[in-house]
C-alpha cells in the first residue's frame, strides 16, 4: 500500500471527484465516485455532517461544482454557524448560488399518515434546489431521520432506493450520511442502497484521549487504502493523515549542522549532525537532555536560522530561565523571531491533533531545526504503537522538508533499560546519542556517547558530560580499574596521577644527585689512590736513590777498606 499510492490514480478507470478535504483524496486515489452516491457512516459526533458540508463547500469553492445540502437535523442557520467556524462564508456562497441549503423538518407528532404516499415532495425539493444552483454535488444529512418521522418503513425504503437511483441518474455526486448501527454500518441499513462507496468514520477514546479514524469500507471499481486513517477536525475542517503517504523518496543533504557543543561536533566526525537528519538523545531524568537541546537551538539561531522548540514538559519561560543558568541565552533569539517555543501538555489533544499542529507550525514557521522535548511524553496521548507511528510520520515529513529533527527521549532510570525503551524508534533515527548517569563514590555523574551516527565517522568514546555555568562541556572520561571514572573520582584519579608524576620526578632527581655524589666519591677515591700511588712511587724512587747512595757508600767503603788493607794489610794480618 505504501508505495502504490501514487499509482492508484492512474490504475482506476472510474471517474472521481475530488472532495478537497485534505488527505481524503489521497487515500481514495482521487476522491469520491463521480455522479454516484457515497455513504458516510459513523456514530454521533464523528464528523459526518462536517464531512458532507465540507465536501459541498470545497466543491463549490475549489472545483466550481455547486452543491445542495439537504439537512434533516440541523437548520440552515446551524449549518451556517458551523461552517463559519471553519472560515467559510456560506451565507455569501448561498447568495452567489453556489450552495443551496434545505432543511427538511419531519416530526412524527405533527404528521398523520393515511393511506398510500410517496416521497415525491423530497424529490421536488431536491430537483428544485439542484436547478437553482446548477448543482453537481448533493449531501443528504442525515436522511435516516425520515425513519423516525414516518411510519411506513416499506414505503420509505422503496422511496430511498428510488431517490438514490434518481440522484445517480441525474449524475449527482452524492454524500449520504448515516448513523452507525449495532452490528451494521448504519442503523437503517442504508448501505444496502448505496453500493458504490462506503466510508466509515469513527471516534474512539483510548486512555481518555480521543482519536478520530476513517476507513474506506468499500469503493466499487476502485483500489483504495484499506487502513484506518486517523483524521482530525481542526480550524480548517477535516484533515485526513494517511500514514501511507509517508514515502521514502526524500533527498538527503550532506550539509552539517553544528551541535552547539564543540566537543560533540568533534565526536561526530568534527562537524556535527547532518542537515535533515533525525537525532535522538535519550537519557534518564536529569541527565541534561534539555540542555543539549537548548545548545542546538542556540547555535542554530546564532547562525541566523530558525528553530522551533516543541516542549511537552516545561513552559517557554521555564526553559529560558533554566538555560540562562548554564549560560545559554535563548530569550534574545525568541525576541528576534528566530526561535519559537510551542509548549503543550501531550494529553491536551490526541496524537493526530498534535501531529497536525506540528505540521501546521512547521509549515508556517519554516524552521531549519525542530526540537521535541521529550517525544516520549507523547505516549501519554495515545498508545506506544500510536506514538511511534506518529513519530515515524512526523520524521518522514521533516526529512522530506530537510529539517533537522532533534528528539529527546526520556528513559526510565536504571542504565539497563536505556537502550531497550527506544527500540521502537531507534531504527528510524540517524544519530543516537545516549546520556546516562553513573553513580559511584557517593555522587552521580553524567556520561555521554554516540550510540550510532549514520554516514559519518564518529567517536566510540564515552565522554563525561559536564554542565557548567558556561554551558555543556564534554571531557574525556577516565578509565580506571573499576570502570569509567567520573566526577570527583576522575579528579581524584587526576590528582593521584599528578602526585605519582611528582614522586617519580623527585626520585629521578634524587637518583641524579646520588649519581653525582657517587661520581664525586669515585673521583675522590681515584684521587686518593693516585695520591697513594704517587706516594709509593716517591717512596720507591726515594728507596732506589738511597739504595744507590748506599751502594756507592758500600763501594766507597769497600775501596777505602781496600786501601786501608793495603796499607795496613799487615796490620790486619797482624
Amino acid at each position: 500500500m505504501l508505495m502504490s499510492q501514487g499509482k492508484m490514480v492512474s490504475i482506476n478507470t472510474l471517474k472521481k471527484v475530488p472532495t478537497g478535504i485534505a488527505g481524503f483524496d489521497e487515500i481514495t486515489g482521487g476522491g469520491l465516485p463521480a455522479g454516484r452516491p457515497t455513504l458516510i457512516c459513523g456514530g454521533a459526533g464523528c464528523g459526518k455532517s462536517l464531512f458532507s458540508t465540507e465536501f459541498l463547500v470545497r466543491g463549490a469553492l475549489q472545483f466550481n461544482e455547486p452543491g445542495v445540502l439537504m439537512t434533516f437535523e440541523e437548520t440552515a442557520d446551524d449549518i451556517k454557524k458551523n461552517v463559519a467556524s471553519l472560515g467559510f462564508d456560506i451565507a455569501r456562497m448561498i447568495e452567489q448560488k453556489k450552495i443551496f441549503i434545505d432543511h427538511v423538518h419531519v416530526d412524527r407528532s405533527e404528521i398523520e399518515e393515511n393511506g398510500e404516499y410517496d416521497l415525491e415532495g423530497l424529490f421536488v425539493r431536491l430537483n428544485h434546489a439542484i436547478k437553482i444552483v446548477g448543482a453537481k454535488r448533493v449531501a443528504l444529512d442525515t436522511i435516516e431521520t425520515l425513519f423516525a418521522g414516518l411510519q411506513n418503513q416499506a414505503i420509505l425504503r422503496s422511496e430511498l432506493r428510488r431517490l438514490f437511483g434518481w440522484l445517480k441518474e441525474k449524475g449527482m455526486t452524492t454524500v449520504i450520511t448515516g448513523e452507525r448501527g449495532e452490528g451494521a454500518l448504519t442503523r437503517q441499513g442504508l448501505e444496502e442502497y448505496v453500493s458504490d462507496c462506503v466510508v466509515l468514520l469513527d471516534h474512539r477514546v483510548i486512555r481518555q484521549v480521543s482519536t478520530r479514524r476513517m476507513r474506506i469500507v468499500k469503493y466499487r471499481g476502485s483500489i483504495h487504502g484499506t487502513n484506518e486513517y486517523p483524521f482530525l477536525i481542526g480550524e480548517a475542517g477535516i484533515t485526513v493523515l494517511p500514514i501511507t503517504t509517508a514515502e521514502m523518496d526524500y533527498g538527503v543533504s550532506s550539509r552539517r549542522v553544528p551541535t552547539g557543543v564543540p566537543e560533540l561536533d568533534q565526536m561526530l566526525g568534527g562537524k556535527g549532525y547532518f542537515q535533515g537528519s533525525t537525532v535522538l538523545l535519550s537519557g534518564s531524568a536529569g541527565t541534561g537532555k534539555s540542555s543539549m537541546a537548548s545548545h542546538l537551538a542556540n547555535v542554530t539561531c546564532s547562525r541566523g536560522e530558525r528553530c522551533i522548540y516543541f516542549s511537552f514538559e516545561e513552559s517557554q519561560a521555564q526553559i529560558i530561565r533554566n538555560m540562562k543558568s548554564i549560560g545559554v541565552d535563548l530569550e534574545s533569539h525568541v525576541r528576534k523571531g528566530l526561535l519559537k517555543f510551542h509548549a503543550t501538555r501531550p494529553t491536551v489533544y490526541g496524537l493526530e491533533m498534535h501531529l497536525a499542529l506540528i505540521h501546521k507550525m512547521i509549515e508556517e514557521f519554516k524552521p531549519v531545526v525542530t526540537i521535541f522535548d521529550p517525544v516520549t511524553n507523547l505516549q501519554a496521548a495515545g498508545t506506544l504503537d500510536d506514538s511511534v507511528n506518529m513519530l515515524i510520520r512526523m520524521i518522514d515529513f521533516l526529512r522530506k522538508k530537510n529539517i533537522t529533527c532533534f528528539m529527546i527521549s526520556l528513559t526510565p532510570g536504571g542504565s539497563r533499560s536505556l537502550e531497550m525503551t527506544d527500540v521502537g524508534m531507534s531504527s528510524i533515527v540517524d544519530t543516537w546519542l545516549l546520556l546516562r548517569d553513573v553513580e559511584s563514590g557517593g555522587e552521580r555523574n553524567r556520561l555521554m556517547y554516540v550510540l550510532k551516527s549514520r554516514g559519518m565517522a564518529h567517536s566510540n568514546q564515552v565522554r563525561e558530560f559536564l554542565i557548567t555555568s558556561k554551558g555543556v562541556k564534554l571531557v574525556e572520561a577516565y578509565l580506571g580499574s573499576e570502570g569509567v571514572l567520573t566526577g570527583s573520582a576522575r579528579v581524584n584519579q587526576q590528582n593521584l596521577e599528578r602526585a605519582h608524576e611528582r614522586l617519580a620526578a623527585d626520585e629521578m632527581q634524587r637518583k641524579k644527585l646520588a649519581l653525582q655524589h657517587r661520581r664525586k666519591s669515585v673521583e675522590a677515591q681515584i684521587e686518593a689512590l693516585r695520591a697513594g700511588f704517587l706516594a709509593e712511587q716517591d717512596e720507591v724512587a726515594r728507596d732506589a736513590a738511597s739504595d744507590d747512595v748506599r751502594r756507592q757508600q758500600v763501594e766507597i767503603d769497600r775501596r777505602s777498606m781496600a786501601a786501608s788493607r793495603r796499607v795496613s794489610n799487615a796490620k790486619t794480618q797482624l
Partner: protein
Amino acid sequence: MKINSKARIPAGRKSREKNLEDKPASDKEWKLRLYVAGETQRSLTAFANLKRICEEYLANRYSIEVVDLLKQPHLAQIDQIVALPTLVRKLPAPVRRVIGDLSNQDRVMVGMDLSELKI
C-alpha cells in the same frame, strides 16, 4: 380536469370570514391545502377522498387549495413537504398535516379533528 389551481372551492367563504374567532369549532371556516405532484392516480384519489369528507361534514365552510409542486416547486421547501400527497389544515389553528391518499376516512377524521363534528 379536477385538479389544478382553479380547483379551489371557496364555498360560502365571504359570508363567514368576518366573525371567525367567535364561532365554535363546528362553525369555523376550514382552510385546507392539498399538495400533490402532478396528476397521479394517488393525488386524484386523495383529492376525491378529501372532497367527499368535506362535503359530508364541512359543507359550505371549507376551501381546498390544491398545490401542484411540479408547478410551484419552491413551495415544497417553504411548507416543509416531504411526502405526497400532503393535506395541510391551515385553518382552524393549529396546523395539521395528513399524508397519504386519505383512503381511511376515520383516520382523516381524527387527523383533522373532524371527529367532534361527526356527532
